[in-house]
């Protein structure tokens, strides 16, 4: 039995906004795998909840006319992984969210929840950063879209205004077309774990597969919120596909990442692993993009 003060079930996106405006202290609950755990812990005990769980219109993946991939915010991790569009165009996102917790968590956990909680270790977030994802929000003023980087304000805090809920995550065609990616989750076990460090790399190669035209890399747990490492991206742009380039990529990551010391892992350890992950991640992404290395 959860210590919940009241539960309001939203019947539409507009209704959710109404409820949130009427109950400004209320917490939005989507799949509940974070919110319910926090209630039990006492952190959110006694709160009012606005449940958007039943808003089936926010579930599913679509390819829009302009090639944008739209992921409804309530789409569960397991449905993202199994989705044909995801598999075809941005399979790495499906792979990344297939590393969240265990199968049951992946059935209940939603990509919207995973990003709205503002947690740096979210397995979906680093990949979304690496794909230049756009976050779509719906509120009293209507729809609002912003780059995912701007959505994250600080640890545990995202740009959700009063009455707003996240309705979708969009990946523009130019962000994924011609790119291949790879996600590495570094954790203490192979399942049921949170990332000590998460690293998502994607790369676009020249036609002859000899040169890196563009590379993007994003981390979870390398800072208070998920982050890109521009120094590394710059360092390999236009560089030949080689082991040496991958090594440089790894080294350059250290200029940007800033993980913290915690009882889960030391900063020194995270930096060391971060470098190895970048190097190995780029190699794997290059191979997926058809490059020989």
């Amino acid at each position, binding site marked *: 039995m959860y210590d919940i003060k009241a539960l309001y079930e939203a019947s539409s996106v507009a209704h959710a906004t109404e409820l949130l405006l009427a109950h400004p202290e209320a917490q939005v609950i989507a799949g*509940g795998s974070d919110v319910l*755990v926090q209630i039990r812990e006492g952190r959110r005990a006694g709160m009012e909840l606005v449940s958007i769980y039943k808003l089936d219109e926010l579930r599913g993946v679509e390819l829009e006319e302009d090639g944008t991939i739209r992921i409804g915010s309530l789409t569960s991790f397991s449905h993202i992984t199994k989705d044909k569009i995801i598999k075809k165009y941005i399979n790495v996102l499906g792979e990344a969210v297939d590393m969240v917790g265990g199968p049951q968590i992946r059935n209940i956990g939603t990509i919207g929840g995973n990003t709205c909680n503002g947690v740096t270790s979210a397995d979906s977030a680093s990949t979304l950063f690496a794909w230049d994802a756009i976050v779509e929000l719906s509120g009293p003023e209507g729809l609002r879209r912003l780059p995912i980087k701007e959505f994250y304000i600080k640890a545990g805090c995202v740009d959700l205004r009063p009455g707003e809920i996240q309705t979708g995550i969009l990946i523009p065609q130019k962000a994924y077309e011609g790119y291949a990616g790879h996600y590495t989750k570094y954790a203490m076990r192979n399942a049921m774990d949170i990332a000590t460090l998460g690293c998502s790399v994607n790369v676009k190669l020249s036609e002859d597969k000899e040169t890196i035209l563009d590379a993007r890399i994003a981390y979870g747990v390398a800072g208070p919120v998920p982050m890109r490492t521009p120094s590394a991206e710059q360092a390999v742009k236009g560089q030949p596909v080689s082991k040496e380039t991958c090594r440089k990529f790894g080294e350059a990551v250290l200029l940007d990442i800033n993980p913290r010391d915690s009882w889960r892992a030391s900063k020194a350890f995270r930096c060391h692993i971060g470098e190895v992950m970048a190097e190995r991640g780029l190699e794997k992404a290059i191979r997926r993009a058809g490059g020989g290395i």
Partner: protein
Amino acid sequence: MEGKQYQLVTCTINGKETQTMVDVRASLTDMLRNDYRMTSVKKGCEVGECGACTVLIDGEAYNSCIYLAVWAEGKRITTVEGLLGPNGELSDIQQAFIDEAAVQCGFCTPGFLMTALEILDSGIEYSDEELRKLLSGHLCRCTGYENIFRAVKKTMLQRLGRI
């Protein structure tokens, strides 16, 4: 004291349509155990980390501890109590757990059976590695997972006519 909030929940449990008033604060585990006495649904952590409370909701495995009971409205729920055949016969996966000595203290067993059911009902032949991943949302301290793996794999192959 703020007034307690109740909601009528209509759902299908193990093939039977049911209806009950539920405290909105209840988890699905609470409802199944307390209102329907489905005590195969076990509590091991109450935060979705052990898998002992796993049930199927519309054919997919969920940790019922972190699922609000009111969300069960209109859903089709399966627990281990629903696995027996019409004449009380054990299902193939239950029999396999017995035959492969996959049961020890038995506390994780019902949850594992439910995830196994989702795997088996998919009709897909999974590799060993895929099977391990699909079963990885359950913790077991007695078996080292070895015989559970054997039981699920054997049943999968049997259903697919491979053995």
